[in-house]
């Protein structure tokens, strides 16, 4: 105020900022909360199929990611950033990619790795090059290969010639079975169809959150409805996995029932659904432009297919997305939105 009389009733200073002066209510925390809500069906499914141990594994993972982020903020005297809920999402996603029988401390170690090595050194949320949950899973797979590949059969499950497991009995994952069965030629098409149903509902062994395609899909529909997940990456990812497995379905016939069941099976087994809708669609570690996103999804699909077909690990989703995460800068300049106005032809 240049002459004290101008503002009579108050000495409050006025705020000055660049426009606009109204903002949408959607913010980073509301987005992260929506992702958490979208993961609830998967959480329920893993509780139903794998029991209390699975839920405690989730708790261990989330506690370690959130705790690590809080501790690091404190240590480096940064403003506390756990309020954006992104570390909760990381913890949940990491737990969803773990086998249900994993010891708690391993999950916690993964959570610490995700936040302390992958996320915070790059500046926290938005700065990380690769998805922290995926990187932590890769870290666990390399560090504890045995524990990470021993799967528990769901309490109610059995299909595809796998032993009707009891809780606590380790069983091979469907992808291992599939690979062996395909290699030996010792399978029946009807088994495959049953297996697809089992995978969709979640009665087949697998990782916590990836076990039921239906649960993942419910969450994904919610995210698509909220406009948080965009359809380009999931669709191109799932589409390329489907098409490649349809063409190279192993039977030599592209139009038998089997030729369509095999790719369906490939989409539902392992982490493809979870990967496509939640991990590969993480905005921080994916390209921003439309063309970039489609290429990113296709890249994930192709690498997943190649790793499953020829790789040493039964499931390639984790590695595929991680590899594509590193390629994001390559897509940066591709498919920039069209400039306002028509393109003039050069005279």
């Amino acid at each position, binding site marked *: 105020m240049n002459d004290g009389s101008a503002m009579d009733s108050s000495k409050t200073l006025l705020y000055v900022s660049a*426009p606009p002066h109204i903002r949408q209510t959607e913010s980073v925390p509301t987005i992260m909360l929506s992702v958490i809500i979208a993961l609830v069906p998967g959480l329920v499914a893993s509780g139903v199929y794998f029991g209390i141990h699975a839920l405690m594994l989730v708790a261990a993972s989330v506690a370690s990611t959130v705790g690590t982020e809080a501790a690091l903020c404190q240590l480096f005297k940064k403003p506390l950033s756990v309020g954006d809920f992104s570390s909760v999402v990381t913890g949940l996603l990491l737990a969803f990619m773990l086998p249900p029988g994993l010891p708690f401390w391993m999950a916690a170690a993964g959570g610490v790795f995700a936040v302390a090595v992958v996320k915070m050194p790059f500046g926290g949320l938005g700065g990380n090059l690769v998805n922290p949950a995926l990187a932590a899973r890769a870290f666990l797979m390399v560090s504890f290969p045995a524990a990470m590949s021993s799967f528990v059969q769901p309490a109610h499950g059995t299909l595809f010639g796998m032993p009707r497991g009891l809780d606590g009995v380790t069983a091979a994952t469907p992808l291992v079975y599939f690979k062996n069965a395909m290699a030996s030629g010792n399978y029946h098409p009807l088994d495959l169809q049953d297996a697809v149903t089992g995978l969709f509902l979640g009665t087949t062994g697998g990782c916590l959150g990836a076990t039921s395609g239906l649960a993942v899909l419910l969450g994904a529909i919610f995210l698509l409805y909220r406009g948080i997940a965009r359809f380009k990456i999931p669709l191109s990812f799932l589409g390329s996995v489907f098409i490649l497995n349809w063409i190279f379905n192993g039977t030599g016939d592209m139009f038998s029932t089997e030729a369509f069941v095999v790719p369906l099976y490939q989409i539902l087994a392992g982490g493809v659904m979870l990967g496509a809708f939640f991990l590969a669609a993480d905005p921080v570690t994916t390209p921003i432009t439309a063309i970039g996103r489609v290429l990113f999804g296709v890249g994930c699909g192709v690498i997943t297919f190649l790793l499953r077909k020829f790789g040493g690990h039964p499931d390639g989703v984790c590695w595929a997305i991680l590899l594509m995460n590193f390629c994001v800068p390559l897509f940066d300049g591709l498919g920039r939105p069209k400039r306002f106005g028509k393109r003039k032809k050069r005279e």
Partner: protein
Amino acid sequence: MFRSLGFRGGIHPPRDKSSTADSPIEKLPPPERLIVPALQHVGPPARIVVKRGDKVRIGQVIAEPSSPESAAIHSPVSGTVLSVGNFPHPRDGRAPAVEMENDGRELFVEMSGIGKPWQDADPLEIVDKILASGIVGMGGAGVPAQLKLMPNSDKPIDTLIINCTECEPLVTADLRLAKEHAEEMLTGALIVKKVLGAKRALIAVDGSPGGAMSSLASACKKPDFSGIETVSLKPKYPQSAEQILIKTLTKRDVRPPKTGADVGCVVHNAATVLAISRAVIQGIPAFERILTVGGPCVRSPKNLLVRTGTPVNAVLHYCETDFTRTKKIVMGGPMRGMAQAELDTPVIKTTYGVFAFESMAPAVLRYNCIGCGRCMRACPMGLLPSHLWKFVDKNKIDDAGRWRIEDCIECGSCAYVCPSKINLVHYMMLGKKRLAAAVRDAVTGEMK
């Protein structure tokens, strides 16, 4: 006629126009003390021709245009010049201005129109009158009106567009203007059409219910106004940006360095053509304007006819503003207006709204960019604000230029949708200024 949206991107903020949409325009009593800036347009400030102690009357010229991009300033009240100096300015922080004391006698200088029916007047005669009346684009841009009335002979104008879309939330000034002064405004449109030699005149109107469409459409039915066509547009922000309006109405493309004249179109704001009509027919220069006062802290929001130079304090007091809750005062609209630091800041010819907010949005709490792409999808100009702001932040001005930062029209759609609450428009403005400075330096460097 109901046209499609016609442009990609854009946003749908809550419009909140109901609190003032039905409030008739009231006259704000001119205050005792006014600050009349010599800068109420784009371009350099006008040259002040009065000095301390001078007695002036309403409509008297107190500053003359200093260049073709400058416009004359007329006294909004009768009274005495208290001082000439630098005073708060709604856009530029500080600017040369005339501080005046109102004697309350409301004495006018002699004012007269062009002295004959405008239909018979020579276009140059009309343009001279408009130039002398200091009329500028009143939709916020402030381009002196005559610059958009004298087409280059190799760029003939065939379409005149009158912008009455008012896509800013909360603002209802043009809506009330169209309802209460439809015929005067349409006359103004016909005058401009004649001056430009345009084949057609389109009035772009906000087509939402309760909009100005019905009153304008019925006015257009009169035989006098048969040459004018109303076009109803679905509300979408920023529909009223010049390039976007031209694209929607004519499908012609105006890329930022070009102007509407390059594709045969001229866009004038509804308030501008009303001012033109009054200047040409009655000889009233631009010393008052209609604006909307509102926002969460204003107890009785209104549409007001305000003299230029009226401090924002007087405007807000008249509308019973709760100053204890007010944290931010915005002149212009909520999307594009400028936040003010001082209550002395005067209303100028381009101020279409005054708003008092209790929140200090854009939020103080800010998150990192998560690369969600909402800004890209909201941008009507096809830019990538998420990349541009990082270039500006890291002072990589060359990169910002390569990614076409100069195309930005500063509409604020990107910042509105940003979930990380980044002040994207701030970075765009800063980046454009730095880019212009870099280009200037490069040119002077070459000359040396």
